[in-house]
């Protein structure tokens, strides 16, 4: 969209004020919980989008890094009393290191082979953590000791504080994406996504670019894992390495608009709002309805608007307001 420089800053400033004021204006804990979920899954989507969106490497195994982040900080906190703030960084480093062998294995594979291999790596990690009973509690998992108000241990009495933490994460994720988008590495990523062989032919070192961005993507996803565990005060392998985390990361990006800065955020707002509305209308009386609606939205987007909602909005914008042909 061709917003002029000054307009862009104005919008950003308005957005920042609204986002910061939101938990003060809306105090219902149900609403804040939804805001937190929206920010968290936007952040995970943003992390996924770096690889999945720009370079079109369709990972369905990002739960691997989410779980590694969650487990690293929780093990450090529960077994050694180390603050999750430190554990969060450590989890990010662990995820980055894990992304090296996983990336080495998976990136040699293309298309569906790659996707299936990523699913397998996340499953393997889940199975491994199921077996670690001594220091990682096996299948039962563990609750995280509730300390009441302990900001240094990432525990807050007010839900709004969690809101600001995850808002901060999302801003960092968007900032990193923006920096990558406008640098040469962003163009390399898009070139790899379009046609990897052609990109290599013109001198893009695809393995190195993919490895580096995958590490960043893994790191960010791990931060989300730590935050989520602290927020729900519980961890077990089935939640931490849940396939649905991998799915949602990809889903929100695709629905919103893959390979765009705001795509994952817009996708998450739509999907999470829909699911919250469905939940308040139907309660938990009808199991499965939420994901039924999700999947219908996803199918509709894929069949009619493969560029996602961002592409849809840009289309309308150009047709009705600017009267210029939209980009293909």
């Amino acid at each position, binding site marked *: 969209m061709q917003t002029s420089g000054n307009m862009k800053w104005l919008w950003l400033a308005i957005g920042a004020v609204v986002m910061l004021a939101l938990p003060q204006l809306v105090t219902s804990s149900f609403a804040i919980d939804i805001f937190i979920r929206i920010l968290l899954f936007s952040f995970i989507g943003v992390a996924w989008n770096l690889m999945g969106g720009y370079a*079109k490497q*369709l990972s369905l195994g990002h739960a691997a890094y989410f779980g590694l982040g969650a487990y690293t900080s929780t093990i450090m906190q529960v077994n050694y009393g180390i603050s999750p703030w430190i554990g969060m960084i450590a989890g990010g480093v662990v995820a980055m290191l894990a992304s090296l062998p996983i990336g080495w*294995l998976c990136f*040699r*594979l293309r*298309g*569906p*082979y790659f*996707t*299936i*291999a990523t*699913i*397998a*790596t996340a*499953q*393997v990690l889940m*199975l*491994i953590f*199921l*077996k670690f009973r001594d220091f990682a509690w096996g299948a039962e998992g563990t609750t995280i000791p509730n300390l009441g108000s302990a900001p240094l241990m990432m525990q807050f009495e007010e839900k709004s504080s969690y809101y600001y933490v995850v808002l901060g994460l999302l801003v960092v994720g968007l900032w990193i994406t923006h920096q990558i988008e406008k640098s040469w590495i962003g163009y390399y990523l898009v070139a790899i996504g379009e046609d990897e062989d052609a990109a290599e032919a013109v001198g893009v070192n695809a393995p190195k670019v993919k490895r580096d961005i995958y590490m960043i993507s893994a790191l960010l996803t791990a931060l989300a894992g730590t935050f989520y565990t602290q927020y729900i005060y519980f961890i077990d392998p089935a939640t931490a390495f849940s396939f649905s985390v991998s*799915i949602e990361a*990809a889903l929100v990006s*695709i629905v919103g608009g*893959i390979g765009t800065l705001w795509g994952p955020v817009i996708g998450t707002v739509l999907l999470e709002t829909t699911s919250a509305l469905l939940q308040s209308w139907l309660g938990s009386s*009808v*199991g*499965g*309805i*939420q*994901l*039924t609606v*999700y*999947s*219908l939205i*996803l*199918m509709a987007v*894929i*069949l009619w608007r*493969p560029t996602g909602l961002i592409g849809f909005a840009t289309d309308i914008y150009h047709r009705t307001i600017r009267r210029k042909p939209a980009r293909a």
Partner: protein
Amino acid sequence: MWETLAQAVINGLLIGGIYALVSIGVTLIFGVVKIVNFAQGEFVMIGMYISFFLATQFGIDPLASLVASMPVLFLAGVLIQHFLIRRVLGPNDMPQIFLTFALSLLLLNLSLMLFSANYRTVHTSYSDEAWHIGGLYIPVAKLIAFVVAMALSGLLWVFLHTTDLGRAMRAASQNRDVAMLMGINPNRVFAVAFGTALALAGAAGSLLMPFYSAYPFVGQVFVLMAFVAVVMGTLGNVMGALVASLMMGVAESLGIQFVGADSGLIVVFALLLLTLAFRPSGLGARRGR
């Protein structure tokens, strides 16, 4: 020791036969239509529910309900290919993966809404029967499932090698563009391939029903194993999928027997990751990449 080993191998082969029906379907669709059907497991689940309802409403034996589940799912496959898949065929595999993925989510959650998460079982006269040969134990229901699965795989092989339509499908799977130039109607071939694959999934569902419970998530168990087998055996290679499925069944069973009750899948995935590390295109590839 040898008896335990032999027993584990037998158990693995018997369940591997079911994995084969699912994975052959996945690999057939990939070979011909060039998409990975992430919803294949949900069609196994639908096959199971069809057999369950025929058994509980009309007292039809689950094995006999093959004659219903297979054609119903064949038709479903043709319709899905015609109304959904056809619209996303193209060089970009992102929409394809996510369309079948969305279909999987949809079917799974619809069945959760319609049938609840309860486990449904059908008890037949042969459900608990077993043969004892030497020190070995062979459950009859699983043996029947295995034999029928192998027979269906054999029929598919005959179909692919002796009929015009089958040859057209093999031609399309080897080189789609050339096959189209030779006058093969892609839409018809794709629809038959998709229908056949879903019919096999339906058969797997009916064969499972005498000894396995139906529930909305049941397909995920089988599709995961099928994906591993399909990738191990090289996507698109029917024989590869069949052999790899039996191997996966045995690997899982050996893992359960010798590593630990919860470790069947670890062994299977370890085998997959090892294969991918050394032969990224799978064991059935005609040549290395």
